[in-house]
């Protein structure tokens, strides 16, 4: 089931950039550029919302802020969706995580300062016991809707 999944701050920035909220009805402030480095996929053990991240997975086998995507996704054209990660799977091995549950994903910039997309994994909550590996297939996540 598709979810509504854009961070509230980013959502407002997108709207303001494309609506007459500026002076005299001009378009509002245009979107601030995200860090020009590979974006990161982050996983959380509790559900993320449009205003706050869930509790990020922590412990051996996971780097805070998430993992960079392996390559460029195919750009959206004519309103098409975008899939990621392209073109390889991403894996995390539980080497003693604070929680063995994976609930949500988040896509954010490389500095992990601007969160854009979020959502629950289809099938969450997912149990990843100590020693096991959570693996996301190439192009397993589809983002779109505009």
């Amino acid at each position, binding site marked *: *089931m*598709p*979810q*509504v*999944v*854009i961070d509230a701050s980013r*959502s407002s920035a997108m*709207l303001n950039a494309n609506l007459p909220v500026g002076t005299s009805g001009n378009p509002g402030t245009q979107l601030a550029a995200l860090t020009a480095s590979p974006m990161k996929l982050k996983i959380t053990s509790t559900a993320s919302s449009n205003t706050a991240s869930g509790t990020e997975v922590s412990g051996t086998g996971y780097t805070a802020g998430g993992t960079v995507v392996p390559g460029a996704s195919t750009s959206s054209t004519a309103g098409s*969706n975008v899939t990621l990660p392209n073109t390889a*799977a991403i894996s995390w091995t539980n080497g003693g995580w604070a929680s063995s549950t994976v609930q949500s*994903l988040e896509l954010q910039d490389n500095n992990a300062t601007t969160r854009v*997309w*979020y*959502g*629950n*994994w*289809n*099938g*969450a909550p*997912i*149990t*990843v*016991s100590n*020693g*096991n*590996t*959570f*693996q*996301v*297939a190439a*192009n*397993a*996540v*589809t*983002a*779109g*809707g*505009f």
Partner: protein
Amino acid sequence: MHLLGVAKLVLPPWEPDQGWRVLDPDGHVVSAGPKTIIYATIVFGQLYGTDGDSVPLIGMKQEQP
């Protein structure tokens, strides 16, 4: 003659439409799930409050109850 060493772990291929999986240390699939869709929709009424849906937009058709 004994051949000593550790066999390279060969992971199973992904099943069609599989989006994620959990593997044990031997590479066996413990659990798996489908792909994930994150989809944003803009609903005019939600953007502009309770009056939003009553504001006619030129060129847009209002849904009938």
